[in-house]
C-alpha cells in the first residue's frame, strides 16, 4: 500500500485498527471527546488516543438518551457507542467545550461501561490571565488519574516522549499541508481530510512514519486533474468525506480548512518549557480556539482569514453543523468578516447525513459566481 493510501484505509477501518493495536501492544485504548484532550498525556502513559467520531449513517438509537436538537455530530458519536462499535475502549475522556458534548459524554458514561472515565474541565475562558495556572493543575490531576488507573507512574521521560511524538506529528502535518499551497495543489482536500482526521486515532509513531513517507510521495507527484477554484472549508467536526469528494468533483479543490477534523487539531506545537505539564497544558490554552473559547477578544476570525490568504483560497464554504450554537453564533459574523476581506462564502447546514444533490447545486452555483469572468 502506498503511504498516502494508508490514511484512507485507517479512516475507513478505524475500529479494526484500534483492536489490532490493542492486541499487538497490550496497551489501553482511551476514547477521546474533543480535540482539547491533551493526547500528549495519553501517549506518555503508553495508551492509544482514539477519537470518537460519527459514521455519517442514519441512526435510530440516540433518541432515548439525548435530545433531537443536540448537534448531529454528538448524536452520531453517541450512536457509535450505543451500537457497540467502540466496544474495545478501556476508557473515555472529555475535555470540556460545549454542553451538547458534555451531555453526550455523560450519556456514554451512563450507558456504555468502560473501566476508566474522566471529565477534564478545560476552561472556556482561555483568555483569562489565570487560565494557564488553572489548567496545568487540572492536567496534573488527569495525569494522576491515569497513573492510578494504569497502576504505573508516568515519568518525565514518558512525558518527553509524549510531547515529542505529538509535536513531531504536528510538524509533519504542517509539512504535508504545504503541498496544498502549491499551484496546482499537490494534495486534495479529501486526501488532507483523511490525513488530518486519522492523526486523532492512529498511534503517533505509525502516523508520523506514514506522514514522512507520504510527504515524499506527494513531493514527486504530477497533478493530472484540473484543480479549479481554490476553496477553504470552515467548520467544526465535518469529516464528511463524501461532501469533500463531491466539491472536488465539480471544479474545485479544498486547499485549506479551519475545523476540528483538520487544522484546529494540530495547528500549534507545544512550546517546550522547563515544566513538562505546563508545556502540555499551555499548548491547549494557546491553540486556535473553538468558538466556545474565543471570548472576549475574537482571535478565531483573523486566524481563519490568515489561513485563507496563506493558502490562496478564492472562496470559503462555511459548514454549519446543525444546532451547534457556538458556531451558529460565529458564522454570520465570520461570513461578513471574510466577505469584507475579499473571501466570498457559501454557507451550508450539515447533518450527520447530507443531501449531496441539493448541496451540489449550491456549490456549483457558488463556483460559477467565483468564475464569473470566464462566463462573459
Amino acid at each position: 500500500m502506498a503511504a498516502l493510501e494508508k490514511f484512507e484505509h485507517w479512516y475507513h477501518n478505524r475500529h479494526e485498527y484500534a483492536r489490532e493495536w490493542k492486541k499487538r501492544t497490550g496497551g489501553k485504548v482511551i476514547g477521546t471527546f474533543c480535540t482539547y484532550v491533551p493526547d500528549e498525556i495519553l501517549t506518555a502513559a503508553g495508551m492509544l488516543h482514539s477519537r470518537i467520531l460519527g459514521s455519517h449513517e442514519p441512526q435510530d438509537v440516540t433518541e432515548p438518551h439525548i435530545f433531537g436538537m443536540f448537534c448531529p455530530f454528538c448524536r452520531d458519536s453517541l450512536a457509535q457507542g450505543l451500537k457497540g462499535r467502540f466496544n474495545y475502549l478501556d476508557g473515555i475522556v472529555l475535555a470540556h467545550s460545549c454542553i451538547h458534548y458534555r451531555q453526550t459524554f455523560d450519556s456514554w458514561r451512563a450507558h456504555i461501561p468502560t473501566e476508566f472515565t474522566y471529565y477534564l474541565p478545560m476552561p472556556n475562558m482561555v483568555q483569562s490571565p489565570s487560565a494557564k495556572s488553572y489548567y496545568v493543575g487540572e492536567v496534573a490531576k488527569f495525569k494522576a488519574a491515569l497513573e492510578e488507573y494504569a497502576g504505573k507512574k508516568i515519568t518525565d521521560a514518558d512525558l518527553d516522549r509524549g510531547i515529542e511524538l505529538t509535536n513531531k506529528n504536528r510538524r509533519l502535518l504542517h509539512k504535508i499541508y504545504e503541498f496544498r499551497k502549491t499551484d496546482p495543489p499537490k494534495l486534495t482536500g479529501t486526501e488532507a481530510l483523511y490525513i488530518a482526521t486519522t492523526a486523532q486515532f492512529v498511534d503517533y509513531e505509525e502516523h508520523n512514519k506514514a506522514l514522512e513517507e507520504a510527504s515524499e510521495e506527494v513531493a514527486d507527484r504530477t497533478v493530472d486533474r484540473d484543480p479549479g477554484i481554490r476553496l477553504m472549508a470552515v467548520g467544526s467536526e465535518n469529516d464528511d468525506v463524501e461532501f469533500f469528494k463531491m466539491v472536488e468533483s465539480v471544479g474545485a479543490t479544498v486547499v485549506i480548512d479551519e475545523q476540528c477534523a483538520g487544522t484546529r487539531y494540530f495547528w500549534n506545537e507545544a512550546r517546550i518549557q522547563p515544566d513538562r505539564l505546563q508545556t502540555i497544558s499551555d499548548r491547549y490554552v494557546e491553540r486556535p480556539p473553538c468558538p466556545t473559547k474565543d471570548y472576549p477578544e475574537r482571535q478565531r476570525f483573523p486566524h481563519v482569514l490568515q489561513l485563507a490568504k496563506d493558502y490562496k483560497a478564492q472562496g470559503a464554504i462555511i459548514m454549519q453543523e446543525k444546532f451547534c450554537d457556538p458556531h451558529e453564533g460565529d458564522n454570520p459574523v465570520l461570513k461578513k468578516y471574510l466577505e469584507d476581506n475579499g473571501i466570498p462564502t457559501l454557507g451550508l447546514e450539515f447533518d450527520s447525513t447530507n443531501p449531496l444533490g441539493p448541496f451540489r447545486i449550491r456549490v456549483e452555483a457558488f463556483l460559477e459566481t467565483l468564475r464569473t469572468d470566464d462566463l462573459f
Partner: protein
Amino acid sequence: MYYAGIDAGSNTIKTVILGEEGIASYHVIKTGLGGEEQAARCLEEACAKARIGREEIACIYCTGYGREYLNFPQGRKSEIICHGVGVHWILPEVRTIVDIGGQDSKGIRLNERGEVENFNMNDKCAAGTGRFLETMATALQVPLEEFGACALRATEPVRVSSTCTVFAETEVISHIARGKKRDEILLGVCQSIVDRIAAMVRSIGVKPPVAMTGGVAKNPAVVKLMGDRLGLPLLLPPEPQITGALGAALMARQDILSRQNSQPALSG
C-alpha cells in the same frame, strides 16, 4: 443558426430555442419519470414549434436539477447563473430575482452586467416551494392554475402557521374541517410561502427592481403578496417559467460565439 437551452427541473422540463431574431420557440412538459427521453421529447416539441430540425441547433446547454443525467447537451450550468442570464436578457434593469420552482426557491442578486453577485436557496425541504403549493392545491381540490385567482377573491387569509409541508397540509385539512372558506385558506397558504421566501431573499439584500420567475410566478396571489411584503412592484417576464432555459440557450450561443472568437453578445 439556432441554440437550445433545456431546464430539467424537478417538476417540469423547459426548452427554449433561440434564433438570430430572439426566442424562436419554447416548450414546457411535466418531468414525469424524467431522464434523457423526456428531455429529448421536450426538445423535439420545441423544434417542431420553431419549424426546425434538431440538426439545425448548433449548441445545446442544460441546467436544472436533472442536468447531470442528460448526455446530449454540450454544456451544463447551474440554474442560478441561467436565471440570472435569462432575466438579464429580457429585463436588463432587474437587480434581484425571486425564483420559486418545483423543489427549490432562490433569491439571486445581479449586477448591471447580469452577473450573480449573491444568492441564497431554501433549506433542504419542500417548504417554500412549488411542491408546497401543489400539495395544498391537492388538499383543497383546486387546480393549480386557478390557485392564485381563487386566493385573490378572499379578503382575509386564514393563517397557516406550519412551514413544514406535511404539517401544513394537516393544518389546512383541519381548517377545512372547521368550515373555513376555501379561498381564505388558499390566501393563507400563499401568505405562508411568501413570508418564508421573503425572509430568505432579504438575507442576500434586496436591490430593486425585483423580478419573479419560476412556475410559482404564474400564481398571481403569490406575486401580489410578495410585492406587498418586499414593498416593491415585481416585474414579471412574459413567460416566467422559462428564464432558466433561456439563460442556458443564451450561454449555448455564447459558447459558439466565443469559439468563433466573436465579441460577447449576452445582453440585448
